[in-house]
């Protein structure tokens, strides 16, 4: 049974369902349920649902310890940038311990945060920094773009025996969508083909999926049928689905809200350049944020980000229907 609920509610629902199902799931973070009236506190009590101070190193480090001790913590970090305050725990501890121990331990932990809130939250709160985490093996990354995926990927993240950066896009929190009730898991490493098409493959992440779909509608009127793929998880990355799509279309445009360098689009583009070269009829193109800190003022903020027009324009370029910009 599915019903329409907002993205943000879908995330909370997943946490609640998993906490009901598994008594080892624990949820804490800054401003998590400060009031005892909060439904999660009412349901699970103050042992399993806690508010913690502004102490990211301790909050994330504790999650590692909890995980080593057999619990499954979900840590609310609010914004992805706050993970940077505790960068060592996120990338140099959590994903490395299993390997360094020769497989003796595992670290099932979920680092939950929001990203990409391009609504004037300015330079330090508006980034899409997850691309850098792709360089740390052992660390999984989920970027839900729909309410159903928000729920299903959170459930999968909690059930996963590895550390997961689960990142919600703030621009999507009020988007409504059909979300199944009860237990619902979307497996990691399975991209979703959001729209079928045969002229070009557009791989888009998070909030840009909607923009890519909108661009696809515009392009349809011009006789261009775009296939839009949402990887859902950047690690594990479903390159097979992307490659098989490029085999069909021969053209690839990668869209990501993060910067061009050191980002998700670069990784995806390079995989296809190397393994799908034979299928390509045109160079791969990327639509990303400019390599700048996101500025505060609205017109500048909009200027640096990907948008529907940039996506459609780039598709036309790879189809040879518009000159390629220098």
């Amino acid at each position: 049974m599915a019903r329409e609920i907002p993205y943000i509610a879908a995330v909370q629902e997943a946490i609640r369902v998993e906490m009901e199902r598994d008594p080892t799931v624990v949820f804490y973070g800054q401003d998590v349920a400060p009031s005892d009236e909060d439904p999660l506190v009412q349901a699970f009590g103050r042992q399993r649902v806690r508010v913690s101070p502004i102490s990211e190193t301790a909050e994330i480090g504790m999650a590692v310890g909890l995980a080593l001790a057999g619990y499954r913590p979900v840590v609310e970090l609010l914004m992805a940038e706050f993970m940077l305050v505790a960068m060592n725990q996120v990338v140099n501890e959590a994903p490395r311990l299993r390997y360094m121990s020769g497989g003796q331990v595992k670290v099932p932990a979920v680092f939950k945060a929001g990203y990409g809130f391009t609504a004037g939250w300015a330079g330090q709160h508006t980034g899409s920094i997850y691309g850098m985490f792709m360089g740390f093996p052992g660390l999984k990354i989920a970027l839900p773009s729909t309410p159903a995926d928000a729920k299903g990927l959170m459930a999968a993240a909690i059930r996963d025996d590895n550390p997961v950066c689960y990142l919600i896009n703030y621009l999507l929190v009020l988007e409504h969508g059909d979300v199944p009730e009860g237990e619902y898991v979307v497996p990691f490493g399975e991209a979703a083909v959001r729209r079928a098409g045969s002229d070009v493959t557009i791989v888009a992440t998070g909030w840009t999926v909607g923009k890519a779909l909108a661009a696809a509608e515009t392009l349809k009127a011009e006789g261009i049928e775009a296939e839009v793929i949402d990887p859902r998880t950047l690690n594990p990355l479903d390159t097979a689905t992307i490659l098989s799509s490029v085999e069909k279309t021969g053209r690839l445009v990668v869209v990501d809200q993060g910067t061009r360098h050191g980002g998700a689009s670069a990784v995806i583009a390079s995989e296809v350049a190397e393994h799908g070269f034979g299928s390509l009829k045109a160079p791969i193109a990327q639509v990303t944020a400019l390599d700048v800190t996101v500025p505060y003022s609205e017109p500048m903020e909009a200027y640096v980000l990907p948008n529907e027009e940039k996506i459609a324009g780039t598709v036309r370029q790879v189809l040879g229907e518009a000159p390629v910009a220098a």
Partner: protein
Amino acid sequence: MDRVVAAELLRTMWRIRLFEERVAQLKRSLQVHGLIHLSLGGEGVAAAVCRQLRDSDAVYSGHRAHGHAIAKGAPIDGVMAELMGRKDGICQGLGGSMHLVDTAHGFMGATGVVGGNLPLALGTALTQHLTGTDNVTVVFFGDGAVQAGHFNESINLAALWRLPVIFVCENNGMAEFTAREEHSTIERVSDVVAPYGFERITVNGSDVPAVYDAFGDFLKQARKGAGPYLLECVTYRRAGHYEGDPEKYRDPVAEQEWAQRDPLARMTARAITEGWVDEPTAGAIERHAAAEIEEAVRFARDSPFPDPELSAKLVYAR
């Protein structure tokens, strides 16, 4: 404290108060956007501290920076324009509310990451120490920052190197949406730094003359190269964490309680009692400030939005 100082403090406090109330209106009518944290309740601390500083002294602040910036001398029209994202904003529209900078007046910056400014302040204080000037550094932060690791790292280093930095903690008992008791077992921030043995004091942040005097004492010594110091001001955060915060976590603000703790109301009453200003003067100060705010809004509205291409510049220093 004398009539000149009292009048200037009232002027600064009114400018901050009216500026913030106007910003709240503009935010609600979507002319200011993004994350806005208001300094309502903090006017006294900002004014009392910054009035005693020079342009060559450095001030750092956090996400709740409007009051500090204005008190330190940032032009209010430039700040308003910044909040409205205009080209004549003090950061040309690039920074916004949490990233105000006005180096000409020594306002070295605000930061959006709680406590992220503390180590920066140490650096500036170190240069002041190394160059042998009598300039000082002041860093404003809230009680929520005290539990962050970089707070402790900064305190240890400042104490070890005896840097001329004055830590000013505005303890409003709230960090984002939770009360201090959910963050720490220690109620007073000055007790958290007790192990480090440097001079510290806790004062009522609503008592502007008390803040003024306490800070003044520390400042005098810091100018001789001594330090560090911690001034904890117990304040009251009048509004929510950010403008738009539904504040489900607080009991409704009792008007009588606010009247007790409103630094502006208290300072006005005290100034009149002490004869530092008379009622007509107090009224004139308020009206003058109101006019300045309206002028600032006009200035901001008249300023165009920046050329979007500006966003691709200024990434690197040449």
